[in-house]
């Protein structure tokens, strides 16, 4: 037998067909038709949209001719009915178009707003309403407007989340709980220009509440005329503040124009503030700033470099919020063990978190639940009552951990559940704590990332050991943070309970002696630290770039922020 070699077929030549010129020509013709079709379509769409109102009209950040500045809003204002608003965007817009009895002035002090004067003692007082205050439809702002708004806010049918801020007013809480009719509220109009307020108990910080949006007045007649749509559109509102909403295209833009009916209109320098874009993508906002379309852009750790490279003027602002790890104190949780909490505290280092992990200028390492900007008796609360500091001690931490294991009857600690949000900042933080506890204490941490509503649900049901949480102030007083961990506070989601702390909170709520109040709050921060109720992480700051041609903008931790009500435009600075 001989092997016969099967001759292999010759290698296939690479297939290269001659391209027919005619076909290419044909294709080119089709391409031209396609292009033509596209241009015609574009022209048609141009015609269609030219007639709709949704257009972005502003052409530049600062328009000298019309005395207008252009800005972005991070979201559509979800609720402009001030009795039901809860969020910062709505609050910011309302702060420009409405005014309460008091308002925040340029140096962040409270100044008279619609009230021109007042007498207030421990249990109430009277406010004198200006006779030259008008709504934007020409009707007078009267004491009745305040009574109506406040009654509406505490009315259980309104279901306002911020009804609690009116509870210092007599019967506010009981009305809200459905026990009394709304007419029983301790606010009465003696005549058009005299508002009498009765308080439930001595409330030393009552005046500070009056600049908050839930306390804004509402004209009853107009409110009823909207048929339940009050605040739904620009036409469904009337304004008593420095500006009025001239146009509101949902999801696209909100344009404010000077309110000629405002009593203090001479102080309003701008003719219009155009929130021409509703945009929450930080890079996109910065791109608009880079092309001089807007006067303000927030920065984050990703795009900070770009701002530095462009040599834009970077500014910092403490936004008022405090962030902390809330520990779960429910008895069935590991974190209800004091020694375990103490061990976590002894490796807790806010400075490392802020400077080495988060790395965004503006944030401050946390020390106490009471942030630096809060006022004490005379000056800063922090200066007057420095409070305990975090001290790192690994050896002692391990000792406490050993004691905790002993008390719990465990050889090894099961993993701790760390509940957190699903954004990049939360990711960085939770991974940092995971590594920290593993390296220093050998404790395993399971990260439970959840989107906002799910995280809230788990916080409320107590399905966590540690949760990254934060709190923003509602009013300019220590108590806005001080009552957070009182046993009755529903926002105390770790269910921390300490009668001693409750006692001090009660003192701060009702005592009219500022020293006694601040001392009580000092005790609160000591208890929170000594008992390791929470681990304070940082005070949030923001960094931003702003156009140097706009002056007179106020930034503040409490109240309308940023506040452009007194802003004005200057000519370009020569650099």
């Amino acid at each position, binding site marked *: 037998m001989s092997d016969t070699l099967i001759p292999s077929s010759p290698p296939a030549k690479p297939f290269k067909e001659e391209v027919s010129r005619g076909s290419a020509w044909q294709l080119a013709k089709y391409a031209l038709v396609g292009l033509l079709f596209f241009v015609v379509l*574009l022209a048609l769409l141009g015609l269609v949209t030219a007639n*709709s109102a949704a257009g972005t009209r502003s052409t530049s950040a600062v328009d000298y001719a019309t005395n207008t500045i252009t800005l972005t809003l991070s979201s559509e204002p979800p609720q402009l009915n001030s009795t039901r608003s809860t969020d910062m965007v709505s609050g910011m817009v309302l702060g420009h178009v409405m005014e309460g009895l008091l308002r925040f002035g340029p140096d962040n002090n409270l100044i008279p707003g619609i009230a021109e004067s007042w007498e207030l003692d421990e249990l109430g007082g009277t406010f004198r309403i200006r006779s030259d205050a008008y709504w934007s439809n020409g009707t007078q702002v009267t004491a009745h407007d305040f009574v109506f708004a406040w009654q509406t806010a505490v009315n*259980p049918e309104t279901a*306002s989340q911020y009804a609690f801020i009116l509870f210092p007013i007599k019967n506010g809480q009981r009305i809200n*709980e459905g026990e009394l009719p709304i007419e029983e509220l301790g606010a009465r109009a003696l005549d058009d220009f005299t508002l009498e307020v009765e308080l439930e108990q001595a409330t030393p910080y009552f005046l500070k509440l009056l600049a908050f949006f839930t306390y804004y007045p509402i004209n009853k007649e107009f409110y009823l005329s909207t048929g339940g749509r009050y605040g739904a559109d620009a036409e469904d509102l009337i304004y008593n503040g420095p500006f009025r909403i001239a146009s509101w295209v949902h999801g696209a833009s909100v344009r404010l124009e000077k309110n000629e009916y405002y009593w203090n209109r001479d102080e309003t320098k701008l003719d219009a503030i155009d929130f021409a874009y509703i945009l929450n993508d930080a*890079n996109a906002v910065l791109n608009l700033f880079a*092309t001089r379309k807007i006067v303000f852009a927030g920065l984050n750790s990703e795009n900070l470099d770009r701002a530095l490279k462009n040599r834009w003027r970077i500014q910092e602002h403490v936004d008022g919020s405090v962030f902390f790890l809330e520990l779960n104190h429910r008895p069935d949780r590991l974190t209800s063990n004091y020694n375990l909490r103490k061990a976590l505290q002894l490796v807790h280092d806010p400075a490392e978190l802020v400077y080495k992990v988060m790395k965004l200028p503006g944030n401050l390492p946390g020390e106490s639940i009471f942030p630096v900007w809060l006022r004490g008796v005379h000056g800063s609360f922090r200066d007057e009552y420095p409070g305990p500091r975090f001290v790192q001690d690994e050896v002692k931490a391990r000792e406490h951990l050993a004691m905790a294991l002993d008390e719990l009857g465990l050889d090894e600690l099961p993993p701790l559940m760390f509940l957190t949000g699903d954004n990049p900042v939360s990711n960085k933080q939770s991974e940092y704590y995971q590594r920290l506890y593993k390296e220093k204490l050998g404790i395993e941490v399971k990260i439970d990332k959840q989107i906002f509503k799910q995280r809230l649900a788990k916080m409320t049901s107590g399905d966590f050991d540690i949760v990254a949480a934060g709190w923003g102030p509602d009013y300019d007083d220590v108590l806005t943070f001080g009552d957070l961990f009182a046993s009755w506070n529903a926002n105390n989601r770790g269910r921390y309970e300490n009668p001693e702390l409750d006692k001090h909170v009660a003192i701060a709520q009702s005592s009219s002696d500022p020293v006694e109040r601040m001392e009580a709050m000092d005790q609160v921060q000591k208890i929170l630290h000594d008992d390791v109720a929470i681990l304070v992480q940082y005070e949030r700051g923001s960094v931003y770039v702003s156009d140097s041609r706009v002056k007179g903008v106020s930034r503040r931790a409490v109240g309308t922020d940023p506040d452009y009500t007194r802003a004005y435009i200057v000519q370009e600075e020569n650099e």
Partner: protein
Amino acid sequence: MIRYVLWRLLQGVITVWFIATATFFVMHNLPGDPLADEKAVSPEIRENLEKKLGLDKPIVVQYGLYMWNMVQGDFGLSFTEENREVNAIIRDHFPVSAILGVLAIVIAGVGGILWGALTALYRNRWPDVVIILLVILGISVPSFVFATVGQLALVTINNIAGFQVLPVAGWGTVAHMLVPALVLGLGTMAFLTRLMRTSMLEIVSSDFVRTAKAKGVPTAQIFSRHQLRNAVLPVITVLGPSIAGITTGGFVVENVFGIPGLGRYFVLAVQQNDYGVIMGTTVFYGAFLVLMVILVDILYAVVDPRVRLE
């Protein structure tokens, strides 16, 4: 024909009903509480909120009520933008998404067919290699990258030019639409190019092309009459779902370019457990998708005489 269309429409209605029902029950079983917010509220206020939004009733009753209202064309209220009806949200924002989507689909369709035909014509030569390389890029790079890069390119162009060539963000004029539409259509265009190329090459070796060649039909005529026309069919098939995909998938592009479209509502509603908007947008888009698929099937018969609607 009419019987076929009616039959398909009936099927469509059943499909939409199924979508609505499934969404309704899945949504109500989502973890998280639609009424929860950063500030905890008292049980009394919660009760009132539930009453206001009809969440206090048993779920079956809620379902019945919702379906009854839906049949009458009322999608209820938004939970997050509390004063707005879902109908108003769809009415205000869908046209914007639709305009953007139509532009994107035209770019994708026309571009895909042309590039695909070009690559088939120049198979294995440099235009083919370059375009296919770009196609792979277009398919694999997600749209948020294109959106961000596209916007950054606009910033650079405007700054170099010293005046506004095209706006960086916003909505309202043709100039605002071009780049977002291109970005939105890019992925689909890449996909269609590849599809068109494969389909063209398949047809080159089919019997009727060979017959035509044998008959001595000029190459250009074979190309346009026999090849192109037949190769377009699969592209049209996927165009239907693509239209829905593009109009609904505009979320990222709308977010980056600050476009007031419905895509943003569609996505954010899920994160916020906004039952009203989730239901409204899902049912609306579901119905839209079903309608597009039916339309494409009808269009198919117009393009291809072999297909009969029965």
